[in-house]
């Protein structure tokens, strides 16, 4: 049985999840920076850490999808 199509659907779902997550982080970071421009560098660092963690989970899914 060929699971290629299911793998593609899985990769797509992972992309949706990561997109929502990173979108939320980015949006909140923008709001925070607008309120406190002097804390920009700190907010950016934390934003990148959080985005990297979410991206890591999404990439787990992509690797699983690649391996089928």
């Amino acid at each position, binding site marked *: 049985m060929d699971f290629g199509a299911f793998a593609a659907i899985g990769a797509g779902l992972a992309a949706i999840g990561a997109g929502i997550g990173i979108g939320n982080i980015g949006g909140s970071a923008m709001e925070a920076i607008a309120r406190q421009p002097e804390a920009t*560098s700190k907010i950016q*660092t934390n934003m*990148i*850490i959080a985005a*990297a*963690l979410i*991206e*890591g989970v999404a*990439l*787990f899914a*992509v*690797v699983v999808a690649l391996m089928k």
Partner: protein
Amino acid sequence: MKKLLREVIFSIVVLLSCVNAKAAEKEHNNNNNNEEEFNSVEMIMHHISDAHDFHFFDYTDEAGVKHAVSLPLPIILFTDNGLTCFMSCAFHHNDDGTYVVSKNGENFVKYHEKIYQLNEGASSLEFDEHHHPLNAVKPIDISITKNVFSMLLSVVLLLSLFGAAGRSARKNPGAPKGILAFLEPIVVFIREDIIIPNVGEKKHKKYIPYLVTVFFFIFFNNLLGLIPSGANLTGNIAVTLVLSVFTLLITNFSANKDYWKHIFLPPVPKALYPIMVPIEIIGILTKPFALMIRLFANITAGHIIILSLISLIFVFKSIFIAPVSVGFVLFMYTLELLVALLQAYIFTLLSALFIGQAIQEHH
């Protein structure tokens, strides 16, 4: 600096002369001269995986003979009879396990960039239904492959650049000049913005060498991987595994007793220990595991996207797709330059964060 430049130009000339020698060599005749069906998955996998030569392009001359232009690399095998070395051009670009190379009374074939040693009497490689070779064994392969070559190149680059920067800093204590003026702001940024906030002011000195090295190693190899026909070193899971194991070892060997107490005696009711302790122990390993997967998957995904966009031209067999494809590839390439820096930054940042969590004082 001039000397370095001269050395670089010299090595490029040497490499190019190798390429020409290779191109002059006759390629094996491709027995199906018909239009081959373009297989994008095969092409992409070939590009992102390791190989025994730097393959630049193929061309077909008037006689219909296919030539490949590539830079051969040495193959070093450890067989029962000892060490065997030869250049990868001995295989004449045969990758199907049919062209036999005899060295020291042993016969070798190359199949999908893996070297097999044929048993006596065998003339080509055969597989059973589980894809195990029937008439050959795999010798221990310590060849200088594309990835190994690229790693050595990056090490030479790092040593020469940072050696020059170090000498310049020692000789001239004033404002930085030359290559130091380029490298010093990056090193200072890593120390001030990555290491000190995460590891802590008091103990950060011990970890600067590792974290700065890992940053520049990943950054340089990401950039070397973006050069067309270069090696995809940071997109190789073995390389990222070793890098993340370094972080794992440094984190756990420098951890203080609070870190271990948090793992084996977490501040939860005693009844939860059977669940919490295994989770915390797995947690030690998942952090570097995520580091490994993140770097591998990011770099590999970038390469796959660029190659897929290029493949579109050949899938649709139309020249009108080309401008769209090339435009998108240009965009992706620029994005990949950002990702090359960002992934080096993230790896260093998270390594510093993990080390900082392990050594922070209890409060």
